[in-house]
């Protein structure tokens, strides 16, 4: 079969789709994570907490699929990235999985007994299940920016020198906190459009304000750190963007400061960090003016801006290696075969619009603010 797009183009498309998936995940599942992390604080009474839970409940399954799809798509399109990062972050991945398993279970099982002690336990389980993934994602991104401690042998088997605690370096903690702030801001923003006016919504506005401010400060700090700190990698020699996916065929060197190279070469990329700052500001405006839609728009734009900033700064690197730069994974040496990328693109072009269409329909059917009255009377509510 003749493939109408060349290998380089397909790799670029799949690099973009990787970004789309991460952003899609954060926009959708970030809502659930943010609300879960706020659970013990956003509602003072059981009814108030149930209000927040039921604003998320019909959607969490659909949102969670972004995470699973992300895993599957990375596996299919970037098998090296899947293998190196998931085994490299082994214990962190476990924490993440445990938290993500705990979350839906908490939503569902909390409601099965009226006992306050039972419910309070699940509220704290929800807090953990929202906070831990948000933190781990951010810490992981920070470590990827710094480079992971792995090397590949001639069979392309991965060997890893690092520990769980080693992941929590000061810079990674900063990106972890940024991630928490971003997700809490987004969760609070989403909640503001999904529940009726009242004390819970007021608290969501307050937490949203705090998170948005923190987001701006941490994003700025992170930018300064990337610019001043000793991080960055660069490809050397002939770059074969059409070549076979084998890191041993390309040459990488550690080049402190190289994460800013792209902005010099392509000034339009500055749009991403600008959006990263504009988003939280728009969210703040929305919160102040009680325009909840504007609030949610702002938090969504912030997510797009911040994640794009990381991706664009590193391009074409996806997972650089700190201990053996030669093993670094890039968009040109870590993808699936030409044929697989093409088939997966076709599948995506067919099914993603269908998914978006029925997701939109589901949102439409369930549209409207959840009210305390519904929480009291609807037997289907958690």
């Amino acid at each position, binding site marked *: 079969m003749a493939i109408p797009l060349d290998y380089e183009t397909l790799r670029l498309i799949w690099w973009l789709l990787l970004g789309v998936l991460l952003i899609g995940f954060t926009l959708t599942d970030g809502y659930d994570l943010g609300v879960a992390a706020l659970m013990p604080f956003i509602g003072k009474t059981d009814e108030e907490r149930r209000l927040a839970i039921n604003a998320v409940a019909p959607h969490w399954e659909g949102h969670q699929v972004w*995470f699973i799809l992300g895993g599957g*798509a990375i596996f299919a399109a970037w*098998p090296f990235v*899947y293998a190196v990062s998931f085994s490299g972050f*082994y*214990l962190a991945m476990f924490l993440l999985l445990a938290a993500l398993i705990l979350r839906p279970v908490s939503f569902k099982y909390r409601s099965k007994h009226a006992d306050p002690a039972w419910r309070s336990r699940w509220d704290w389980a929800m807090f953990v299940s929202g906070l831990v993934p948000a933190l781990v994602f951010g810490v992981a991104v920070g470590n990827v920016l710094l480079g992971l401690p792995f090397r590949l042998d001639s069979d392309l088997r*991965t060997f890893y020198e690092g520990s769980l605690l080693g992941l929590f370096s000061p810079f990674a903690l900063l990106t972890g906190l940024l991630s928490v702030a971003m997700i809490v801001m987004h969760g609070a923003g989403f909640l503001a459009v999904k529940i009726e006016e009242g004390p819970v919504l007021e608290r969501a506005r307050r937490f949203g304000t705090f998170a948005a401010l923190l987001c701006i400060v941490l994003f700025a700090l992170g930018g300064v750190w990337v610019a001043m700190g000793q991080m960055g990698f660069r490809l050397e020699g002939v770059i074969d963007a059409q070549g076979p996916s084998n890191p041993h065929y390309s040459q990488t060197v550690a080049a402190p400061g190289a994460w800013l190279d792209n902005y010099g070469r392509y000034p339009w990329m500055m749009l991403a960090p600008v959006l990263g700052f504009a988003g939280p500001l728009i969210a703040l405006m929305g919160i102040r003016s009680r325009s909840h839609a504007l609030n949610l728009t702002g938090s969504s734009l912030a997510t797009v801006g911040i994640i794009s900033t990381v991706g664009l700064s590193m391009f074409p690197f996806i997972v650089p290696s700190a201990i053996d730069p030669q093993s670094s994974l890039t968009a040109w040496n870590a993808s699936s075969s030409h044929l697989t990328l093409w088939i997966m693109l076709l599948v995506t072009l067919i099914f993603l619009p269908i998914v978006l269409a*029925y997701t939109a329909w589901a949102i439409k059917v369930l549209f409207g603010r959840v009210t305390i009255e519904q929480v009291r009377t609807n*037997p289907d509510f958690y």
Partner: protein
Amino acid sequence: MDMAVVELSRLQFALTAMYHFLFVPLTLGLSFLLVIMESIYVMTGKEIWRVTTRFWGKLFGINFVLGVATGITMEFEFGTNWAYYAHYVGDIFGAPLAIEGLMAFFLEATFVGLMFFGWDRLSKVGHLFVTFCVALGSNLSALWILIANGWMQHPAGSAFNPETMRMEVTDFYAVLFNPVAQAKFVHTVSAGYVCASVFVMGVSAWYLLKGKWTNVARRSMMVAAAFGLASSLSVVVLGDESGYALTDNQKMKLAAIEAMWETEPAPAGLSIFGFPDMDKHVTHFDIKIPYVLGLISTRSLTGEVMGINDLVLKADERIRSGLIAYDAVEKLKTDRTSAPAREAFELHKRDLGYAMLLKRYVPDPRQASDQQILMAAKDTIPDVPVMFWLFRMMAGIGFFFIAFFALAFYCASVCQFNKRWFLKLAVVIVPLPWLAIEGGWVLAEIGRQPWAVEGVLPTFLGASSLTISQIWTTIVGFTLLYGTLAVIEVRLMIAAVRKGPVEHPPASSEGGQQQGNAGFAPLPAE
């Protein structure tokens, strides 16, 4: 490779996969039972069927959450614990997993929210459509997962690429329409339908024994009996058997299931009892039915079913051929353009995986002695006694279910489920489908050993480079987490069953009777 890391990784995978599959079969089957019940509601307009649908929907929900939650682990475990496997076959294996997410899981997960929360917001037909999408989504999920698993059993449509040191797809249609995958899909979803039917029968029988909710229980039993009979026939008739003649490993699996050490003249007999002896390669107290095995597995009177000893000899040959391919790959690593190495590789590439079996005994397979080659060839025999007995347990339960549902069908038409001994039987056998299903998976996966991917990648090479303490940490972690959730799940299930269909009573109980519910108790029971 540290074999302890491999064994622990296998243990963890087995634990998490088997735990995940406690919930999946019920989701597969109950979703379609919900579609049937809700269809009856939409067609007849009788409130009692809405009550019935919503009751089973509630149990479906409790089960569904854990199915989804534990499925996440599976999607990521190939990367965390089987990183070299993920690199080596991700080009092919990743695709069905990603497509599963995009095509099936999104459908299932988006619509399940609507299914639970959309009763008041959708028309009757609209809600039925939503329920149907959930059933379709969960069953399509199974299709893609089994395409992935089928490829591990029979790696069609792919080839090793020495430039990237991994398997790459050559023919996607061959991966999709893999006959092993198709047989597995039908077999697995049918087993799920049986499982859900037995579950519905059991819970309903318990209500009838207690005299509670008899109107819901009788109707549920009726549906489950019919659905269960069709599914239990499908699970046995459309079993995996058809795929067993395809590859050497599949042949080995069949021979191991039958503990057939020597190739017999066609048509071979089917062993129904015996004690296989792994050391001496004989089966003690073997009782055979002549001709049957040859007929089932080759669909002919003349087809030969190969015995274990001959398959080992064949493996020995393939290892030697694979060594030539291995040598060529090593040469291509240093000189990408070497034409002679390319040529040698192309001639022997289909046996490359066999040479890698030697890595268990010697770091460079090319240095292996004849003795080591023979040891590696013998490694291609899976655990025969385990295979032999697991298969008999699974098949025995399968045949039992055909008889059980035939009886249920008879009971439904003759005595309206009034026989207490039958109801007690229905309650007692509820765990059996899970036993058969888990046994079936163990059989399929033990039978594939020593391969992660048949003839391509030995299991022990697929593991990540982790430390033993790391893996123990996650095994203990998963066990604690999953154990706690299992206890909670079972308690919630029992509580929901005890409570019965109370949350969604019909609009008015008299109305229910006027609509022609004569012969059945009104809600609440009696």
